[in-house]
């Protein structure tokens, strides 16, 4: 099977690699996305798998367990309607992720870390509930010396927990190996991304999204092998023509928007959301001891609400500039109250680069009709200013 098909298949069934790992006697730990010291989990001998929900996943378990126990005052009145987080909660509660031995809930935003609270309360409500036991990996919004110390304590507590779960210490050699493999994944993804941002891309945004998503669900060695094969495939692929689109906004756990955009003849050449190219972050340092490097990497991972907003806006501008799009599409889900207050500033910065923007605000989590998306894209491109390359 070509690597592209294999990666797409793993993207479609994100428990596939975990099931194989589990059947072979391995133990699987799910995580809800960055910020999370994933390499530490791998070094402890577990398979780290990024958990997601799906627009097709229903909400029966969410209604039964999460809605009645949701601490409604904790995130704001609208947060209980944030679709992608609810879908992830549903998937964890309804047994879709029964392959997990445990779930690590990270803190990119309150709406996500409440999954931990909901799981704890749901289990108290129904001791028979078949959902993985969760562990909370905290993070601050503000980056500071105190924040670094806080993250170091979180890291050390997770290390102790992992060692307790596995029954053996995590060695420096094992962590160095996990870091090396993860850095190789990052390097391969960067090479792959080059095929997207070249003048005439050879890699579609949909396939890139699937590859990035899939490699977060499998052992690093398998991921690297598939990515290397995919690079060979893409090198031989024909160049594509079409308007270049940058996708920003809410985390996209599915490829519906990308498919709709690319069905209209455009190509997604980059994105800023946490399921895209930014999922892995920069390489982990190898010039210092592995534990210090992994802890430092965890500290430098940023939550969804990067403080200050100027840093978030500047980061967005840098990413858009690198992708050289004809249009930046900002899709912010209904009830994504963090991005609803950030996206307008980001769009202003993007437009200042000469790149027009399309704002899909209050978007439903359930994918819209691709034809409607296509029309919106076409309309936006019809009124588009010159592409960035020529605007500069």
């Amino acid at each position, binding site marked *: 099977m070509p690597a592209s098909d294999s990666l797409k298949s793993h993207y479609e069934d994100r428990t596939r690699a975990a099931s194989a790992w589990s059947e072979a006697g391995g133990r699987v730990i799910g995580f809800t996305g960055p910020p999370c010291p994933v390499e530490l989990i791998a070094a402890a001998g577990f398979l780290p798998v990024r958990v997601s929900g799906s627009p097709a996943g229903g909400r029966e378990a969410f209604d039964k367990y999460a809605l009645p126990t949701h601490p409604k005052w904790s995130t704001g009145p609208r947060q209980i309607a944030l679709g992608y987080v609810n879908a992830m909660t549903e998937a964890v509660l309804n047994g879709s992720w029964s392959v997990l031995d445990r779930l690590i809930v990270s803190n990119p935003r309150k709406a996500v870390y409440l999954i931990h609270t909901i799981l704890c309360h749901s289990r108290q409500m129904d001791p028979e509930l078949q959902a993985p036991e969760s562990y909370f990996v905290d993070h601050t919004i503000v980056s500071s010396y105190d924040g670094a110390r806080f993250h170091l304590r979180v890291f050390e507590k997770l290390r102790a927990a992992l060692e307790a779960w596995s029954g053996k210490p995590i060695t420096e050699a094992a962590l160095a190996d996990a870091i090396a493999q993860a850095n190789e994944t990052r390097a391969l993804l960067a090479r792959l991304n080059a095929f997207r941002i070249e003048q005439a891309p050879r890699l579609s945004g949909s396939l890139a999204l699937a590859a990035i998503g899939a490699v977060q669900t499998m052992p690093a060695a398998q991921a690297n092998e598939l990515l290397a094969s995919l690079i060979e495939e893409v090198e031989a692929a024909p160049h594509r023509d079409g308007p270049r689109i940058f996708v920003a906004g809410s985390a996209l756990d599915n490829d519906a928007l990308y498919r709709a955009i690319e069905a209209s003849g455009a190509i997604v050449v980059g994105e800023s959301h946490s399921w895209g190219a930014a999922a892995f972050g920069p390489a982990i340092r190898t010039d210092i001891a592995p534990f210090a490097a992994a802890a430092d990497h965890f500290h430098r991972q940023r939550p969804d609400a990067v403080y200050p*907003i100027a840093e978030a806006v500047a980061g967005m501008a840098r990413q858009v500039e690198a992708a050289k799009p004809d249009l930046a599409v900002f899709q912010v889900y209904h009830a994504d109250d963090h991005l609803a207050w950030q996206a307008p500033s980001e769009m202003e910065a993007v437009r200042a680069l000469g790149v027009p923007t399309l704002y899909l605000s209050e978007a439903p989590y359930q994918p819209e009709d691709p034809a409607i998306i296509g029309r919106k894209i076409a309309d936006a491109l019809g009124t588009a200013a010159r592409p960035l390359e020529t605007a500069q």
Partner: protein
Amino acid sequence: MTVIPDRLASVNRIRQIRRDWTEETRARVAAGEDFVVCNGDECEELMIAMDIPFIAINYWNFLIVAQKKTDHYFKLLRERGHYGDDFFALGYAATLDPSQAPWGGLPNPTLIVGSTRFESELRICELWAQEVGCPCIPLDFSFPEPIAKRLPSDWPDHMFTDWVKFVDADRLAHRWSEERVLIRHLERKTGKSFSVADLARVCDLINEQMSWWNKAQMLIAKADRCPVGIRDQMSIYQAMWHRGSELGVELIKDYHDEVEERVKNGVVAVPNERIRLYYGSQTPPWATEIEERYGAATVACYYTGIPALYGRQFDPGDPMMALAARHMLLFSIGPDRIIRDAKLHRCDAVIGIEPHRGAYPSLDERECEAAGLPFLALPREASDPEIVDMVSRFIEDRLLASSEKLNAG
């Protein structure tokens, strides 16, 4: 029995004091004094201790709502690309168009404290600070801190002394540290000096004020029939904005004395009181109609039990540790406190607001019912015909029917 429909004198006084405070604060900042914008319950005590005028964002936003400017400002925000009609953003919106704002708008603050309570709040504070050109200093882990495991059901009885057990130790250390950073910013920007002794005095006054408040609430709870209507119980809540001051203590001691007097004289708030209700918000908008129709008195609500939870035993050498813990966890959210307060006030039922209700009963409903408290979930706070009908049917079917059966038996 004496019926006094008039408002309490202490309530009338606090209303006047708030009006005066508004004018005084406005005059102080207009005269060039520094002032700070922050969210309620997140750090005000620092400003009180340093005598820096401040405005709590939620208070300011309620002033905007009271002046019926909500629609204007939500429209303005939508024109700027901000959807979702976020109450928290009203103050920011008023800065964009001061012509429609209370006081003719706020003068530019010296500093805005960035709230991390709801997800939108830090961004809104940052945009606000950008607009007026002042720093925005965020604080991590603002109340309400979600708790991984539910606290013991009697946590309200232990919050005063055992607060340290109810918050995460690492989070507390971090928050304590961040509040110290905020103090440094306040000192630098205002030229005023922070004093631990001043903060300890503020904490002492808060404890004293809340102790009087709790005593008053216990008098209300234990009286044969409710001596103070829910409107007055909520109106006196404005004294919360004066916590940590001599005036705050005086206001609530006067309130206590007045409640005590009413109990002694057998005064009742709802003359035909037959049913006692606990309401899961502030003053029920349908209260008068339901009182008159069924003699159903709302004797307690979500807010009436909160003052008692402000008190914290603290180390006079480091009062900020207890304060930082309270800024992270003022109280735990969930049915424990509702059941405790409803039973304390001998309520016959609990009426909650559950806009997101699904097919399954909420934890609040489940546990209230299990504790013998019939529970009604309303989809919204309103007194429209649908809501009044829901409340009426609940009273007739669940409360009157059972009491009639009881009487018949």
